[in-house]
């Protein structure tokens, strides 16, 4: 299953980031078409395309857009989440560097759909080259007259904090504060950035929009599954022959992705486990990879599509050590606002570390599972729920491997 590439179709061109290359390959035609469409018609088209958010939550994009209050008199903001940070994910970096005009054009169309005159693009601070490439594309789009006629883009750099990839944490950060997530409701579509109705969309999600306008909702929907249209960019890393970003219809299976696209497993060549959607997704064992990689396919398999970051582990990989590395990440990145998350992430990291170092106690595994299960759903944002995914799944699916490291009393 190779199929047509959409988002990555120009990646092989060395000048793919330039306005010239973008226009030569049909760029800004969708924007011309969208200008003749009513905003409600654009929203409807995106809804019927079954486009789902590709940053992590998988929420239907057109539905999100429709939450902007009708007849709202003040400003409405479009915010692009380019704060890519989910471990195992690197697709938005490719889009910003290799096809930045697709994002600009998608933003023009999205802004028309939600009646926004100003957009902010929040790029993670470490992404210096992607930020430069995208800023250059914005400048070109101003010079070409696409921007500045009722729609402006402000490019904003983050400063190093995973939590700012959470949409309300991102909004806090954009407002000049520490990136603490906000309690919902009110949802950003009602009261978001600077107190105004705001739509926060992921880079890849918006890059799909010009193609939906050009080729129609029915075409896009037919590429995917019943509940999710299109293709998406899978970031594949870890123990595979060809790590990289692979665009595929969302109905591709995890097995196809690993063996047909990424060339199979390295290490000892035998698959042990796979993280299918960034580090916050529950881990799958080698016999759980015949699942489709769409939002609902992975949800039904007890994990999540998340940001589509696929991390592959062969049999020589230590699962307890991997969990320690993941737990260190969540302990470091917890923003500290909610007690269950702030405390549990720190303690669970310490417990996983002592298990790996041979100092574990026999009650540690049950304590981690208990703390993880009780804390889930009790915090302001989804960060802790994301941490709980690996805590529980690594231990429940590979318990024997942890127990083998714990000294018998």
């Amino acid at each position, binding site marked *: 299953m190779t199929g047509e590439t959409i988002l990555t179709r120009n990646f092989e061109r060395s000048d793919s980031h330039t306005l010239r290359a973008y226009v030569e390959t049909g760029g800004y035609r969708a924007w011309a078409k969208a200008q003749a469409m009513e905003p409600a018609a654009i929203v409807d088209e995106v809804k019927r395309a079954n486009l789902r958010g590709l940053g992590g939550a998988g929420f239907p994009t057109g539905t999100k857009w429709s939450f902007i209050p009708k007849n709202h008199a003040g*400003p409405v903001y479009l915010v692009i989440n380019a704060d*890519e*940070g*989910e*471990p*195992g*994910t*690197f697709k*938005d*970096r490719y889009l910003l560097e290799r096809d930045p005009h697709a994002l600009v054009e998608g933003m023009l169309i999205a802004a028309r759909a939600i009646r926004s005159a*100003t957009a902010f693009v929040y790029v*993670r*601070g*470490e*992404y*210096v*080259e992607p930020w430069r490439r995208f800023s250059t594309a914005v400048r070109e789009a101003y010079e070409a007259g696409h921007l500045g006629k009722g729609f402006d883009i*402000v490019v*904003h*750099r*983050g*400063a*190093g*904090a*995973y939590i700012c990839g959470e949409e309300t944490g991102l909004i806090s*950060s*954009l*407002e*000049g*504060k*520490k*990136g603490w997530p906000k309690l919902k409701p009110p949802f950003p579509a009602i009261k978001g*950035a*600077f107190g*105004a109705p705001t739509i926060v969309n992921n880079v890849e999600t918006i890059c799909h929009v010009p193609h939906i306008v050009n080729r129609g909702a029915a075409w896009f929907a037919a590429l995917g599954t019943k509940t999710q249209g299109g293709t998406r960019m899978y*970031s*594949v*890393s*870890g*123990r595979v022959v060809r*790590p*990289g*970003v692979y665009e595929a219809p969302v109905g591709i299976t995890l097995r196809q992705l690993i063996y047909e696209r990424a060339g199979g497993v390295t290490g000892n060549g035998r698959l042990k486990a796979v*993280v299918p959607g960034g*580090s916050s997704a529950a881990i799958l064992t080698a016999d759980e990879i015949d699942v489709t990689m769409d939002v609902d396919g992975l949800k039904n398999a007890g994990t999540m599509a998340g940001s589509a*970051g696929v*991390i592959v*582990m062969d049999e020589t*990989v230590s699962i307890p*050590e*991997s969990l320690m*590395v*993941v737990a*260190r*990440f969540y302990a*470091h*990145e917890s*923003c500290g606002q909610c007690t269950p998350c702030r405390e549990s992430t720190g303690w669970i990291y310490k417990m996983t570390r002592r298990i790996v170092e041979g100092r574990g106690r026999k009650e540690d595994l049950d304590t981690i599972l208990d703390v993880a299960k009780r804390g889930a759903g009790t915090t302001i944002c989804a960060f802790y729920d994301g941490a709980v995914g690996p805590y529980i799944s690594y231990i429940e699916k590979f318990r024997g491997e942890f127990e083998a490291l714990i000294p018998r009393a």
Partner: protein
Amino acid sequence: MSQSPETAAPVFSEAQLAEVRRLQALYPDARGALLPVLYMAQETFGWISLEVEEYVATLFGLSPAHVHEVVTFYTLYFRERPGRHVVAVCHNLSCHLAGASGIIAHLKQRLGVDPGETTEDGRVTLLSVECLCACEAAPMMQVDDRYELNLTPAKLDRILEGLA
């Protein structure tokens, strides 16, 4: 380096103050420009001292406490003077699977410092950081503005030689 910020009060030039006002005007609330202005301050003064925080606070009509809260929340603002180069090695899962701990050990040995420390000659600050999202080229690190990919000990040595 013309002036040591430890001895001179941190002040932007007129041109920089104009840039601050331009940035502030981009946001519905001028405060939105706080992160970009802190980057400007760091580039100008080398790092974000308490004096720099107080100065930036005056440009926004904010309390120094607010600015301190922001500066300490993010990892890319330096609260002490970093080395002339910052070498940040990813230690997250994909890089871990590709041998990041060996990369860090090699750098520790070559530079004689632990992550979080700066070499005595002020040349390099070594950091061990979370996912930089270049997992397809693990193990990897960021050297100042640049991503360095598919690291090996030999490649590390070449990169270190290039850092003045």
